[in-house]
């Protein structure tokens, strides 16, 4: 289907290059997180959670398709969503490193989901009124879905944290091991600085304060302790990944790499 009702606003060439990288980060984060959640299908603790996690995965892959399609158009080298998803190696992926972290137990998965759902809430709320009409439309749509994602993940975090000794211990453990990857969520580099200076997205730092307050609130309700250690700046969005992404991509890209150009 032809996309876009309103013709995309034309940006100067330098800005288009930054916007390509920015949109790629959003798309890759949704794609990689969606792929991770898909690994739970058939393995979740209960049928309802199996369906829930699969629904989240599906929504995230839907977001990724729109972002990657737009990124490909901005890049202008003829790469579509599939070429970007299946034709790049780990160092070319620009997702947040948090998204690629292994599922671990259900508690770890929920912690990762709360941290990233809350991140997407801030990012999409900011982008919903973007001067870039294409991004604004995708973000406004994704925001509606992210709201119930956060309801799901934060509800479970409270249930686990404020549950049994064992569920509390596991949720806290997941939080301790994943917290270090939150440093890059709201640390702007030159790409995000350029995007916010151009008025396309709000400043990342101000959004980070709201994220932090939201996380404090849910951790408090879940009787979990915010880790004392400072998160270090990991640079998944700059293509520096943990080893886990390579394994994820090997599986995700297997068919398209084994049978290049294969069609249904």
């Amino acid at each position, binding site marked *: 289907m*032809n996309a876009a*009702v309103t013709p995309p606003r034309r940006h100067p060439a330098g800005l288009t290059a930054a916007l390509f990288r920015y949109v790629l980060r959003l798309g890759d984060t949704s794609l990689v997180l969606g792929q991770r959640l898909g690994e739970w299908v058939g393995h979740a603790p209960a049928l309802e959670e199996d*369906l829930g996690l699969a629904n989240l995965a599906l929504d995230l892959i839907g977001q990724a398709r729109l972002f990657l399609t737009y990124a490909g158009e901005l890049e202008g080298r003829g790469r579509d969503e599939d070429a970007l998803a299946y034709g790049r190696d780990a160092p070319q992926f620009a997702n947040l490193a948090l998204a690629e972290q292994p599922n671990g137990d259900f508690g770890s998965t929920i912690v990762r989901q709360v941290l990233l759902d809350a991140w997407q809430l801030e990012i999409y709320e900011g982008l919903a009124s973007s001067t870039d009409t294409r991004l604004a439309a995708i973000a406004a749509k994704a925001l509606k879905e992210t709201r119930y994602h956060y309801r799901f993940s934060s509800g479970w975090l409270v249930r686990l944290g404020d549950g049994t000794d064992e569920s509390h211990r596991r949720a806290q453990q997941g939080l301790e091991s994943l917290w270090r990857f939150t440093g890059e969520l709201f640390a702007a580099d030159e790409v995000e600085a350029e995007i916010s200076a151009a008025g396309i997205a709000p400043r990342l730092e101000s959004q980070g304060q709201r994220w932090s307050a939201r996380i404090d609130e849910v951790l408090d309700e879940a009787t979990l302790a915010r880790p004392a250690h400072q998160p270090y700046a990991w640079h998944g969005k700059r293509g520096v990944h943990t080893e886990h992404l390579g394994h994820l991509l090997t599986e995700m890209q297997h068919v398209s790499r084994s049978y290049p150009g294969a069609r249904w």
Partner: protein
Amino acid sequence: MSGGEEARIWRLLGAVPDPEIPVVSILDLGIVRYVRREADGRLHVGITPTYLACPATEAIRIAVRDTLDQAGYADAALEAVLSPPWSSDWVTEAGQRKLAAFGIAPPSPQPVCCPRCGSGATERVSEFGSTPCKAHYRCSACLEPFDAFKCI
């Protein structure tokens, strides 16, 4: 475009069922945003997805394409409209009635009523159901499980 032609196209689209809940049409769901002839002389039809990754979206596009082709509008442009995002408020009254008759509680901000026995004593089992647009409920009166259309 003449009023008669426009009405005819809306009628044609009203016969395209939702592939996953075939008792409702794509018009009942409120996902056809416009039908109009534009300056290029072609017919333009705007369709919005209910959920970003709803697998039915592609099947709907193919069904609408087929319908328009057969009606002599092979050059019609199908456009994906994202903004404003679809809301369950756009499900028509007829659509709500058909959903309820089919055993799916229509989208409602009020407590969800059981589509089988009508009781308001229901509980949500999970916010996620068999398709992106539905949640999973259970009736506390007749004890039957049922699907409810999510409010979004």
